[in-house]
Structures are given as C-alpha cells and as structure tokens.
C-alpha cells in the first residue's frame, strides 16, 4: 500500500521527462544554451529570432490600435 506513492512520483516524473524532452531541444538547436554568453553571442540565429518576434509584437500592437 505504501509503495502507491511511487506511482505518483513515477507518473509525475514521466510527464516531466516528456515536457523537458519536448522543451529543451529547441533552445539547444538555436544555440541559446551557451553558458556565460547569455545565449545571444553563441550563434547568429537567436538575434534574428528576437528581431522577428519584436516585429511580430509591433505588428500585433498596430493591429490592436
């Protein structure tokens, strides 16, 4: 009966594992995981992604006005 609690931990760990596995690779792919560089200096792409996002927000704001 006591070992039931491990079911809770196992299910939680399984979901967490899936979410981490799903969420972390994209930051590795764009080179954001670069300790000490704040991500930005690692590769060229993040700056473009950032700029594209800023543009997207500006467009969105203009639409809302």
């Amino acid at each position, binding site marked *: 009966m006591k070992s039931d609690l491990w079911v809770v931990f196992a299910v939680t760990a399984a979901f967490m594992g899936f979410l981490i596995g*799903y969420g972390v690779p994209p930051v590795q792919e764009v080179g954001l995981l670069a300790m000490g560089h704040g991500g930005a200096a690692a590769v060229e792409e993040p700056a473009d992604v950032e700029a594209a996002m800023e543009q997207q927000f500006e467009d969105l704001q203009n639409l809302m006005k």
Partner: protein
Amino acid sequence: MQQQVTGVATADLVMDKAALEDAEKRKKRRWALGLLGFFAFTSIATFIYNEYYIYLSVYLWFGLIYGMCLQYGKFCFSSAFRDLFAIRVPRMLVGIVIATLLFGAVSAPITAAGLSTFHAAPVSSHAIIAGAIFGIGMVIAGGCASSSLYKTGEGNMNALIVILSLSLTQALFADVGGWTNNFVPEAWTQSALEKGLPASITVTDGWVDQYLAGYVWNKPAVTYADLLGMTNESVLGAFVGNLLVGILLPAALLLALVYALYWRKGYRKKQQKAGKDVSGLMGELAGYWSMIIANKRTATAGLILGIACALQMLVIQGLRVKFGFKNAGVMLERIGFDFGLSVQGTVFDPGYWYVTTQEAQWVGWTLQKMGIENLDNIYFGFVNGIPNPAINPADWMSFALIGGAAIIALYHNEFKFKKPTWETAMWSVIGGFFMGIGARLGLGCNVGAFFVRVANGDCSGWLFGLGMAGGAYLGVQFFNWWTERKLAKEMESCGL
C-alpha cells in the same frame, strides 16, 4: 470468565477500528490517484486536441510539483514569522531562507545561460510599504499567498476564503477609480499621461493605474549584477553579482542575526547541559550549523522547489522558441481564444512560479462577464489580460498546485475538511484584503515579490521581505493584544 469476554470484545473493537482506519486511508489514496489521473488525462487529451496545449501542461505539471513540495515542507511565510515573533522559534524562517538560497543556486546557471524568463521589478520604498501591508495581512489570515493554496489542497476552507478575498481585493483594487483619484499626487498623473498609453487605457482614472505609470515605472529595475556593473547573462554576473552578493551574503547575515537573537541561547544551554564545549568560534559555528539543518523538511522541499522553478523557466523558454512567440497571448489567439487579451495582445505568462496575478485574473474575467469593464486599466488591459481561466496558463499552475498539495496530503493522511467558524472566516477575509492590497502595491506576493525576486538577484526582493517582516511583527502584536483582550472579557463574564 467475564474478564476474558471483555478482553475479546476490546480486541475486536480495536481490530474494527484499525480496519476502518485502513479503509479510510485506502479511500484517500484512491482519491489521490484519481486526481493524478485527472491531470494526466487533461494533459494527454488537450495535447492530442492541439499541440499548443503542451504549453499549458508545462504550467500544470510544475504547479503540481510546487503543490507537493509546499505541502511536504509546510512552506508557510506566515507561520515562519509568527513562530519567530510569537514563540521565538526560527525553524520555518531558516528553512525558507535556505530554500531561497538553494533556488538562487539553481537559477544562477539558467540566468548565466541567458535562459531565464525572470524580469527584475522597479526598486524603491514602495516595496517595503507593500511588504508591510502584505505581512500584516498574512499573519491575520493565518497563511501567506502560497500556503493558502496548499492548505486549500489539505481541505482547509479558511485558506480558500483567504484566496477568494485576496483575489477579489486585487481585482477591485486594480480597477478602482472615481473618488480614489483624489488621493493621486498631480506628479503621478502627469507622469502617467506622458507614457503615451493606448487610448483604451483610461490612465487618469484609477489609483493603481497612476501609481504604476506615474510612479513605479519611473523607478529603476535593477539586479545586484547591474549594480556591480556586470551583465546578468554572464557567469560573473549571475554567480558573483546575483548569487553571492545578492543572496548568499545577505542570507548568511540574516541567519547570523536570527542565530544571535533566537537560537544561540537555547542551543548553548542544551549543549552545556549535555556537558559539551561550546566556547570559541567553533562552538558558535556548530550552533549556527545546527540551526541551519534544524528544518530539513522545509529545506528539502525548497531544494526541489528551486530545481523545479529553474527547470520551468528552461522548458517554457524552449517552447517559446519552438512555437515562435514570446507570450502565451499569441498562442491563445492562434488556437482561437482572443477574448481577454491585453491591448498588447499579451496575457500573464511569467514562465516561473507565481501566485497572485492569476488569482486576480479569474475574478477580473468573472467581473468582465458580469458586465463590469476591467480591460481599461493597466494591470489587466495593458499587461496581463483576463483570459478565460480554463485556458489561462498561470491558472492551470495554481489549480494543479492545489491538486498536488491534495495528493500528498491524502497520501500522508493529512487531508481533512476544515469548516470555518464565523470568527476565522472574518480573519480570513480581512487578512486576504490586506494581502491583496500589498500584493498589488508590491507587484507580487511572498512568492513573486520575495522568493522569486531574491533568488534571481532582484534588489527589490529583500526590500519586500524587510517590509513583510515588519508587517508580520505588527500583525503578531495585534493578535497578542486581541487574544489578551478576548480572554480578559471572557474571564470578566465568568466573574473571575
């Protein structure tokens, strides 16, 4: 013969009682597994329906972990200060400080890697005042913002009243205008107007609006790394500036103060009684260490909380990169939910553990549905939005937090439905009210304005904590006075 019969009957009774207790425990565990199954089903079903829902599931599962940790560690800021000031027991406070330190240690590499979703808050005396109001409230309410959530998961209905009062107060306070405008300094109004906010935000009508745009936004948002001229997203800035200078040193000093005032005397007395030598620096260090490890349960919960908080930032950042947005408002629009977005198209999406804003949001959403305009203020209309609670990321986190706490409470046989009395309900409402005001003035609660900020090197975190300690002290004094007065009245009515 009669004695033998009585003995057998008693044994049967004991066995029946044990069997009943066992059945009750099994029932509670089934409920716990049912809750877990519900969260698992929600995640899987929504993911199958639309991939974007995984973003909400991240909030859900991290919320579940926060709830489990809070319940296990009995992580309560109100208890921490009440125990310290009322009965001079520093265990919980020390546990919380250690937990904050551990969270900081886990956050530092995330910040250094540039993956933190944390943004520093404006620094000024407002944080101290807000913390003081919040501190008074949490002592009166008998629980802080986070512990009210986990206690609700334990079946404590007083805690639920605190949450309701806190939520309602925030939503109303953020929107109140009219006569409150008379208390706004002219300089705030002018400064707020100069910000050029969209026309849909009635910035000159609303005390909080003018407080935010005319005062708080003018204050610098700095971290300890910034103060030392370092970049947050660097090893030096994250580890030396934020972790060492911003967390480790102040925490060590605070613990030394607590040791000197509340722990040293008792520890030395106990050791001397046992014939142990406590003289010299080594004796003091041993005493200091004994205080730090006195509350392993809270510290362990804090370590897991810290790891979870940092991991949440990492995963959320990853999903933002994957889906190509910076805020969940864009995602909600893509999946067809455009009601309740702010004028910027955003919703509250902190990417880390937060408590109070999502509570205000669901009240804001309800009021909006009842015909009370809420999107013309800065808090909802310009920044956080009021999305449907069913698809609000941070609401998924709070809901799962209550569920996570319930699961652990059910397993440890600590779940019990506690009905409030009129008196306790009154204190819960009053306490929740003060906490709501304090949370909006300080832009967060004991979690968002203290725990997360301190751990991320934000200079306003310790200021809010300082105010919270002062407020809690006043709250304890008030309660002592109230209890003594009540006792005196009762004794008088008994003719004593």
